[in-house]
């Protein structure tokens, strides 16, 4: 059984069709990249999988179970968690408490155990020394890492990273890619959207390309980037 099967997902916002009959399948332990120009529907697809948006049509199966339409907290407790494109925090809770909330509620840990777990994940993303600071004092790259620690603390098997590297400099991107490989080595499955091609091509096993809400290509990163439809979507007609 595949870990995740997205079948014929359509999402309309009024007259705008953000996703149109998208199919995606994902196996356990994979890193799947989702790329596409702005407005292609990447974030909408993530929100549908994570239960933040209900699809207009189609099914989402997680370990064979239909999850579309479940509330976000239920989806999270089943084992799907996402980071946010604009990194989200509980600003006046400490960095450690930000991660603690996920360990308490998504993973269902007791207070003592959850504190230990939060500290471990903060150390994993390299924020151990910031644990007691209010989260609102973190820099952009630290926020991205805190968000990742929170998602890891949910114990989710499937992690959705929505442009987790946006706003990072070259060196930070390199560190983030290494970190995400380590996450996979710990048995998590990842779906990654990214504008930074270099990062996603070096990270993903497989890539799905979206354009105007439709899947236009799928395959190994190097192959996909040579497909005429993909080149056209990114660079326009003259280059196609």
């Amino acid at each position: 059984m595949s870990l995740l099967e997205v079948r014929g997902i359509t999402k309309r916002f009024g007259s705008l069709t953000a996703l149109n009959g998208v199919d995606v399948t994902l196996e356990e332990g994979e890193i799947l990249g989702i790329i596409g120009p702005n407005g292609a529907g990447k974030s909408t697809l993530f929100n549908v999988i994570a239960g933040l948006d209900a699809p207009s049509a189609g099914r989402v199966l997680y370990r064979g179970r239909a999850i579309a339409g479940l509330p976000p907290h239920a989806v999270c407790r089943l084992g799907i968690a996402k980071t946010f494109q604009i990194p989200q925090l509980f600003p006046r809770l400490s960095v450690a408490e930000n991660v603690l909330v996920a360990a308490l509620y998504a993973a269902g840990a007791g207070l003592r155990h959850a504190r230990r777990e939060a500290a471990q994940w903060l150390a994993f993303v390299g924020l151990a020394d910031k644990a007691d600071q209010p989260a609102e004092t973190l820099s952009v790259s630290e926020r991205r890492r805190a968000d990742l620690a929170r998602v890891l603390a949910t114990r989710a098997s499937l992690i959705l990273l929505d442009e987790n590297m946006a706003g990072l400099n070259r060196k930070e991107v390199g560190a983030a890619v290494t970190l995400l490989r380590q996450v996979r080595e710990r048995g998590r499955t990842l779906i990654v959207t990214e504008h930074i091609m270099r990062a996603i091509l070096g990270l993903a096993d497989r890539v799905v390309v979206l354009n105007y809400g439709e899947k236009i290509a799928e395959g190994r990163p190097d192959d996909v980037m040579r497909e005429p439809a993909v080149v056209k979507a990114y660079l326009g007609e003259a280059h196609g």
Partner: protein
Amino acid sequence: MRPTLTAAIALAVLAVLVLLPLGIDPYPLRVATVIFMWAALAGSWNLLAGYAGVVDLGPVVHHGVGAFVTAALMLKAGLPFLPSALLAGVVAMAIAYALGTPTLRLRGAYFAIGTLALAESAKQLALAWDRLTGIPLTGGSAGVSLPLTADYHLFYYVMLTLMASVTAAALWLRRSRFGYGLRAVGENDRLAEASGVDIHGLKRRLYVGSAFVIAVTGGTAGYWLSYINAQEFFGTGMTFQMVVMTLLGGLGTPFGPALGATFLTLVSEFLGTRFVYHYLIAIGGIIVAISLFAPAGLSGLLDLPRRLVAAPVGRSGPGGGPAQAARR
């Protein structure tokens, strides 16, 4: 302050308050009872607004239900006061569950406006109840009178217990699983949801719990004053007093509502007896001054010496000062 020190000071104050009636006159005791009552009400409001970010402008619904159900149980069923008040609290919880299930899905200002309207509807319903249903309960605009039988010490201790319970709950929320969930909801509800927090379930548990305290306080106040009417017990004036006291004392702080209740009640007593017609103007001025100069409330002032001594200059600036807490 460290949690153990805070708890020790709070317990010492509680011990003094328990023993206080031994040594003082009825009048100051009555003022103390008024303070405890407002501290319990404002404290319940603070649990929702200060911890979970749920601004409820209809807490008087529970207050009025508590008062009238307590009165009915005492007068019609002949039950003693305490069981009546506790049962009224349970009735208020059931009503809060039914009201909270749909309304708590509203967010922010929509919930505030919704509950404000709810309170007004509840008042009109209470005023018309006897006429509409044929079941005498609220006495319409004439209200209901209760017998003057209890010793004033009873009210002192009941109100003290209510205040202490709410304060203990606020302290417990700072370091419990439930409290972390609520604060997460208050800070960023979308993120809380995406972190596995059932925001609606959590808010409803708190809403129902606070309804119990507010209803028992209302029931106690009704028996104490020996006269209740819908106009006053469902009145929005009470709501705004809870809000003002909480903001004065410090929103989202465990002792803020009690401080605010003490301050505002004492100032009203002091000024009210001297400047019968103009004291409200002075109170307005004081409230404006506090919100200008101590936006985090009176608890923020209590914290000031510690911050000035303990915090390095760089951290007591805009990042960690009262201005920050005021952004709540």
